[in-house]
């Protein structure tokens, strides 16, 4: 059944064993993606967005450990693979781009060197062929005068141009999955618009799937097919982009959508913030992690983690209120 999925993460648990204690970064995270699908992951800082994505690439930082669940990508069982095996698929079947391209580009090598190296690592192209391909790639990501750019160093390029180079490197081997971790957060909006446009164009052309991690609800609204909302290391709501924006069910998602001011507002309306502060993952609450900030919090919310409330094939939440509403309608499940 799961063979139609490109990504199938089931019940992932991952903790960081720090001197201060166990940071439960991921608690029972399940995500699946079909080929060519664009999934957005949104949520507060520290909710586990990056950790989820990196674990899928076998890039969990020390002292992090996968302590449960299974991660399937493109018929590879990721948790059973060695670093050597992972290196083969990283950059070829799955690529990642980060927020700050400066940290992932090597300042002492030319752009050309860095692209050629990736190509030669994953294909049997000769250096000359790889150079040709590098030129093509720069053209593909909209960089003018590619021959000249190949000879330049990262610091000689603007932020937007560096991010294009990162995308070129990520796409060098036409991966099936591109993970983008806040790819435009460090860029200006006009440059962000260029990069997002480029990513969508390339997705159409190459048919890859994208996991888009961002805190910007505007970015997911315009790009994604589906959205996972994370809170304290859990996916607390998952649905189509329209579900999340027009029919949010979880109190956190509702709050999130209400708390952003809209550029197209026609009168001044007071913002509705989510009160309180984010969770301390060293001491997470016993029940629903959002309970201490939730207006609708009930007794059970403080005691027990809410099970899945399923609305349709796609849309679900983890929320006792939703559970109760369904019960009243006589359609409780799981």
């Amino acid at each position, binding site marked *: 059944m799961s063979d139609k999925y490109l990504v199938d993460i089931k019940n992932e648990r991952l903790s960081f064993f720090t001197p201060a204690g166990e940071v439960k970064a991921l608690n029972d995270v399940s995500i699946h993606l079909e080929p060519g699908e664009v999934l957005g992951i949104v949520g507060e800082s520290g909710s586990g967005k990056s950790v989820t994505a990196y674990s899928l690439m076998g890039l969990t930082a020390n002292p992090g450990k996968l302590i449960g669940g299974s991660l399937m990508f493109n018929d590879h069982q990721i948790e059973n693979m060695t670093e050597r095996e992972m290196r083969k698929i990283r950059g070829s079947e799955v690529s990642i781009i980060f927020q700050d391209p400066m940290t992932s580009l090597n300042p002492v090598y030319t752009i050309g060197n860095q692209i050629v190296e990736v190509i030669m690592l994953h294909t049997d192209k000769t250096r000359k062929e790889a150079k040709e391909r590098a030129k093509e790639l720069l053209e593909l990501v909209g960089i003018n005068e590619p021959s000249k750019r190949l000879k330049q160093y990262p610091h000689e390029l*603007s932020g937007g141009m560096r991010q294009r180079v990162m995308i070129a490197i990520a796409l060098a081997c036409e991966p099936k999955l591109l993970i983008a971790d806040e790819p435009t957060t460090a860029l200006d909006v006009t440059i962000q618009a260029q990069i997002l446009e480029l990513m969508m164009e390339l997705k159409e052309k190459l048919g890859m799937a994208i996991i888009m991690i961002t*805190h910007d609800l505007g970015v997911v609204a*315009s790009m994604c097919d589906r959205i996972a909302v994370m809170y304290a290391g859990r996916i607390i709501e998952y649905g189509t982009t329209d579900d999340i924006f027009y029919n949010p069910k979880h109190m956190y998602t509702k709050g*999130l959508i209400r708390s952003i*001011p809209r*550029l197209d507002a026609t009168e001044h309306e007071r*913002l509705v913030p989510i009160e309180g502060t984010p969770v301390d993952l060293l001491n997470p609450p016993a029940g629903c992690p959002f309970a201490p900030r939730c207006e609708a919090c009930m007794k059970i919310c403080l005691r027990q983690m809410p099970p899945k409330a399923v609305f349709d094939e796609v849309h679900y939440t983890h929320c006792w209120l939703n559970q109760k509403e369904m019960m009243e309608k006589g359609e409780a499940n799981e």
Partner: protein
Amino acid sequence: MSNEFIKVEHLKQYFPAGGHGKNKRFIQAVDDVNFTINKGETLGLVGESGCGKTTTGRSLLRLYEPTGGRFEFDNNVIFDVENKKFAKMDEFRKRMQIVFQDPYASLDPRMTVADIVGEAIDAHKLASSKQDRYDMIIEMLERVGLNSEHANRYPHEFSGGQRQRVGIARALAVRPDFIVCDEPVSALDVSIQAQVVNMFEDLQNEMGLTYLFIAHDLSIVKHISKNIGVMYLGRMVELADSFEITSHPVHPYTKSLISAIPIADPKIARESKRIVLEGDVPSPLNPPSGCRFRTRCKYATERCACEVPQFKEVSAGHYAACHNLDACN
């Protein structure tokens, strides 16, 4: 008496960038910027990274020696470079404060919250006794939604939103009437941003504060500002009422800036057409002649290369600097 509490005319701030004598080079960080803010109101400043927003705010507070222009604050001339008039800042320093973007970097990690707020009170000798000082600290903390329990804690014990509150309490402690808010919510989570933005609004209403509110998120700026100024490469290209400028921008740069902002509404996002700007912002060391936006502007004509467009009123309270407003509207 005008109610123009803040009046900025032809503000220029250049920074030396190497070279000697005739070859001395300058970064024209702010070049001929004009605006006014009425008492108790907010002017938002937006524009791409490096366009001169922070420099504008900091030069008003005299954190730099202004290169040119004139700044009047509550009918006092703070500086008038042309006429070599510079006010003694002691009196005004306390009335003008700044809140920074990064709540981490702007708070001393070795000081308790009480010390941080208290330091500002001491610097301006505002407290008459120890008890008075303590009461003032607690009052400020309560104003920003913290309380006496927080007073003896250190910055690292707080979340980002709480730290930003501490930074604001510090600025408020000296009872300013003008605050430059430089990206005060940019580093915060979306759900926390709304808390802090509401607090800025409440404080303004309660204390009659005047804000220069700098941010790159136009939705937030629109929400909090009466008027918005859009900067590009050191110059103000458009200024108008916040609803007017977001619904009827007239300058080609503002138009593309607004269309580039992703709207958090999937149906609108799918339908809306972006005006994607080509290329990058040119270097402020060597800005284009004439209109600085011309290298990315699809309406640019020959005139745009040789003549600086005047910043003029196109309709009541709506200002723009462009030679070809007719062509692009």
